[in-house]
């Protein structure tokens, strides 16, 4: 509470000075910023747009566009956010600001799960010699993009590049170790029906799958041995093959389901408990 009051007083003092500051444009800017800080994002955008409209000398083009982008981002409207960040980037007054805006675009891409795009922009930034000093930041956001893209091992490697004991490295490593291999689950079930289910801990389903496959396999083989070709084809096709295929599908489904649980636990932790910078 005390902290909140301190913060409020801080804002208050900043804005009081701002309110009496120089120009009309500056006042308009401060008002818009104030709305942004009070999380009135829709109205903040209106005021930033007003600022842009009356800003004949384009003094605020970069900042207003960038703030509009941030407002849209806060409303989870990432397509619009990116549109305005791109406008801001065009008007960016320095290389630093260009980089800053690019990172914002990357973060939006991560959040809207267009991670391919995020990774491509990151590669472009890395290839640009003017951002040679921003390596750590590029690796950090690439790590995030890879985590959202389910490539936990690669993500861990990126965080490791920044620092060996990077906390996100440990998290990504941990999740990577827990994840079941979908290919392995499927392959096991190809060889022994139900084995993939056992691998993912679904014992009842695995046992039942095995039982059905043994039964239908036995009946099919028996029919062929007894020269009842029609019966053999029918049971083999309609039942044995159906349950065999179902068994493989199930192994895959269980592996994916379990992985989703693990991944979601990880993502939940990252969103709620992790204290570093997030997209």
């Amino acid at each position, binding site marked *: *509470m005390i902290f*909140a009051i301190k*913060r*409020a007083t801080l*804002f*208050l003092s900043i*804005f009081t000075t*701002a*309110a*009496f500051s120089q120009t*009309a*444009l500056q*006042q*308009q800017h*401060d*008002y818009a910023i*104030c*709305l942004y*800080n*009070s*999380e*009135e994002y829709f109205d903040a*955008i*209106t005021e930033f*747009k*007003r600022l842009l*409209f*009356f800003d004949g000398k384009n003094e605020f083009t970069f900042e207003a566009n960038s703030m509009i982008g941030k407002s849209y981002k806060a409303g989870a409207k990432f397509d619009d956010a990116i549109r305005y960040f791109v406008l801001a980037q065009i008007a960016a007054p320095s290389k630093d600001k260009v980089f800053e805006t690019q990172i914002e675009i990357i973060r939006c891409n991560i959040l809207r799960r267009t991670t391919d795009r995020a990774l491509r922009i990151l590669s472009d930034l890395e290839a640009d010699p003017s951002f040679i000093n921003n390596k750590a930041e590029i690796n950090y956001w690439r790590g995030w993009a890879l985590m959202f893209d389910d490539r936990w091992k690669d993500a861990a490697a990126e965080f490791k590049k920044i620092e060996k004991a990077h906390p996100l490295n440990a998290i990504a490593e941990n999740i990577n170790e827990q994840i079941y291999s979908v290919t392995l689950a499927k392959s096991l079930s190809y060889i022994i029906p139900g084995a993939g289910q056992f691998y993912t801990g679904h014992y009842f389903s695995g046992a039942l799958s095995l039982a059905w496959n043994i039964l239908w396999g036995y009946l099919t083989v028996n029919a062929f041995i007894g020269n009842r070709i029609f019966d053999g084809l029918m049971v083999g096709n309609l039942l044995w093959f159906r349950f065999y295929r179902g068994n493989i599908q199930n192994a895959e489904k269980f592996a994916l389901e379990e992985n989703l649980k693990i991944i979601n636990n990880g993502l939940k932790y990252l969103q709620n408990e992790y204290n570093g910078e997030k997209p």
Partner: protein
Amino acid sequence: MKIISILFFCYSLSFAQSQLFNSPQEVKKFADYLYCEFDYLRAAEEYQKFLRTDKNDTVIFKSVLSYYMMDRFSDVLNFSVSSSRNFVFYDDTQFLKLISLFRLNMFNEFDTTAALIKMIGSKLETNSEKLIRFTFLMRDSISSKGFIVSPFDETEKTTIEKFYDRKQNPHYKSPLLAAVFSSIIPGSGKVYADKLGDGIFAFLTTGVFTFLAYDNFKADHKFRGWLFGGLAGLFYAGNIYGSAAAAQIFNAGVQFNFQNDIQIYLTKKKHYLPEYDFCN
């Protein structure tokens, strides 16, 4: 708490906000800009802000038009009230109200507004008459073809006549007939209700089970005979039921497509709203 205190402060700041950008003329300029950027809600709000201190016919109309562009028809109805008879855009505003009532399917209020438009001899009376004819096509009322097509010119006449014919003679299928067909030849009712594939498969299923029943009875497999016979009976009955249902769905589809085609046609015609070029 923090946010409330900042917000409170923002409002105090808004008083200090430069009057330069908030004079009615500047507000209007900004609103016009937003309108041309398709940012209609912000434009409408700015127009409303302008109207709190000033009166301007064009602004009233453009604010209503903004709401219309966003398909916010109840707002169109709310804000069109402030237009008065001596305004240049009065007829246009009334017409926007009329389209909105049409699109909200509020046909009683539609009739009242249409009557008013006719009474004042609006310049958009023909447009309004056209919309009225469409309400006749959409409602359960009977009127002559001549009356329906009268306000339309040659280019539209054939289309409207086709709509009229579709309304008068919808190509419905009778659920009863579908059921009767299927009880004579399994699946034929489905074919009649425009479900050829379902019909063939119904025929095959019933046929196969009947054959199996027959075959087993012939070989003196009583139990299997009864089993397959029972299944054949079930599929036979189910298909009769399903054929009637398919005909009912077909009819719902006919109704839906008729209404939908009218909507598409009207969207293409922009509901007979004249073109307004405020941005060039």
